[in-house]
């Protein structure tokens, strides 16, 4: 009430004057945001140029995007069409991988996190529960480089490879397998490593929801004769429902950001099959062998940003519908 009165009384000029020190305080923050976030946005224009390193950029309009999607003029010869499709192949693979990796990873992580939370919630000994939580949060604080290093050593073919040696001594395989050098096994291990690192951390939010459940609901359920399974089915799961949807929406909005986890696990043998958009940008710009065309990389990045923005907006609407408030 008082706020509105104050607003009505004071005109804009004096109010700005009153807050001049705050504007001054905000200048460093603003400077950082402008230099590291807004100025790079201007760099998007390079996506409409051909920009060979060491030369000045040449305006080419939408040519980079045509190359990206493999679009050719209608009167192009079949060979030209094939060539364009071949050139666009890495982009489409990377785009597909970005979505498939993120979505499967998200579903696996969330699924396991929900399972673990439910059973952790059933545990009686609070001490054991606390220790378990401490341990399962642990991998989250290891960087992706450390995580990938740990698993690269564990999956090694030589003497130190724990996984190969264990499987061999169990008689499950005869020869050591280089898991990270074949796209098929690489992807499986990519998901395993992600679950290992992130599932525990994801339980935090579900555990917070579960501790918020009114114990009266469980008591009432017991009085109604509900066993453990029924209680989980009718009390725990419905209570988690909204949180699960929230987690899915929040993470879906960010799926285009996939980079480091893929990048640090890649090697030359699987690179082309496992690229995501962000890694493709990196290899095109920094590691393509020939003189890189930065314009092409910028175009891929711009496409990624636009899809990311679109996902954000869609998820924001979904979030408003489901839980009554947006994600932004």
């Amino acid at each position, binding site marked *: 009430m008082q706020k509105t009165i104050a607003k009505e009384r004071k005109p804009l000029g004096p109010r700005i004057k009153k807050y001049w020190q705050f504007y001054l305080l905000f200048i460093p923050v603003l400077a950082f945001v402008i230099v590291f976030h807004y100025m790079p946005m201007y760099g998007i224009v390079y996506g409409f140029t051909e920009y060979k390193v060491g030369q000045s950029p040449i305006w080419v309009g939408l040519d980079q995007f045509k190359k990206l999607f493999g679009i050719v003029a209608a009167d192009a010869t079949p060979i030209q069409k094939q060539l364009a499709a071949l050139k666009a192949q890495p982009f489409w693979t990377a785009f597909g991988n970005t979505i498939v990796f993120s979505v499967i990873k998200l579903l696996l992580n969330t699924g396991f996190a929900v399972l673990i939370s439910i059973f952790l919630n059933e545990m009686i000994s609070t001490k054991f529960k606390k220790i378990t939580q401490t341990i*399962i949060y642990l991998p989250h604080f290891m960087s992706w480089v450390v995580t990938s290093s740990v698993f690269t050593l564990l999956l090694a073919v030589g003497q130190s490879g724990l996984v190969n040696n264990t499987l061999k001594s169990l008689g499950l395989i005869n020869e050591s397998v280089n898991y990270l050098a074949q796209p098929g096994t690489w992807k499986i291990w990519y998901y395993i490593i992600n679950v290992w690192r992130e599932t525990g951390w994801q339980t*935090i939010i579900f555990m917070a929801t579960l501790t918020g459940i009114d114990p009266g609901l469980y008591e009432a359920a017991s009085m*109604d004769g509900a066993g453990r399974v029924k209680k989980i089915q009718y*009390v725990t*799961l419905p209570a988690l429902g909204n949180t699960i949807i929230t987690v899915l929406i929040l993470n879906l909005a960010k799926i285009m950001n996939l980079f480091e986890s893929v990048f640090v696990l890649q090697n030359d043998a699987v690179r082309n099959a496992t690229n995501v958009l962000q890694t493709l940008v990196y290899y095109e*710009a920094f590691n393509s062998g020939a003189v890189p065309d930065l314009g092409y990389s*910028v175009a891929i990045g711009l496409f990624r940003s636009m899809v990311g923005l679109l996902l954000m907006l869609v998820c924001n609407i979904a979030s408003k519908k489901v839980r009554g408030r947006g994600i932004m």
Partner: protein
Amino acid sequence: MAKKNNVPQYVTPSGKVVTGPSKLNKPKSPYEVFHFINGLVFIIVCLIILIPIWKILVDSLDLTTGSGMRLFPEKFGFDGYVSIFTDKSLLLPLGISFLTTLCGTFLGLTLSTIGAYVLIQWEMPGRTLLGNLLMFTMIFSGGTIPTYIILNNLHLVNTLWVVILMPAINVYNLVLMRNFFEGIPASLFESASLDGCTPWQTFYKIALPLSKAALASIGLMFAVAYWNDYTNYRLYASDRNLYNLQMKLRDMISSSDQPSAVGSATENTIKNAVIITAILPFMILYPFLQKYFVKGINIGAVKE
């Protein structure tokens, strides 16, 4: 939807009538089979998490070349760790990691708290505009290559400045900080300014001392991000002389860069020792500061 509606039914009196008295107040027995299996499952889960880390730790302390799975090192020795401190190409990255983490965390906290403090001034003209200006960067970015080109024009590429300055502005952390400040009663700020405090004095005499827990949480988030930073180095500061521990480790593992064996430490021992060194600072802090580590995500979950 139908299942959801079942939940409140249990508290209605009609529900209570249905159940027989025999099932009332069934005591929770800790010796139930379920709890035994549940405990066992979680012991296995914990082992799955710990075995890889334990294996690395054992190998980092083992001086034999052959290394299958053992619970303890065969030939125990700290030579792997000693070589980190004697080999300059390993010591420098470690120093750079510490330097950037300390500077970056301090800078990051400064920017987040100042920004958050300005954004809670409800009557300040342009507050919403400034807030939106920050929020927009969370949903749209220029991308890595435009950033590289711009930073290159500013002569920031391949300097330590870029890896210290760039992650310091973190809008997500700033928003968390703002949410925390919003919880401080406005009357405290008002009375401070009535007593003649300047905004700056109110900031460091009222706002900061009242938010120690949030400062610890967000400071830890910054510290972890700086210590673990790999992407910014790889993209904008990949000069060999600027490597932090993560960059160095990645190079060692992808085997383009082998450490020179020192004393009786083999390559493998050194690799494992570097991995342990890269996680050690937070593994030591973590058990004591777990609540601050975990708090960050909860501030974000409750209010966003």
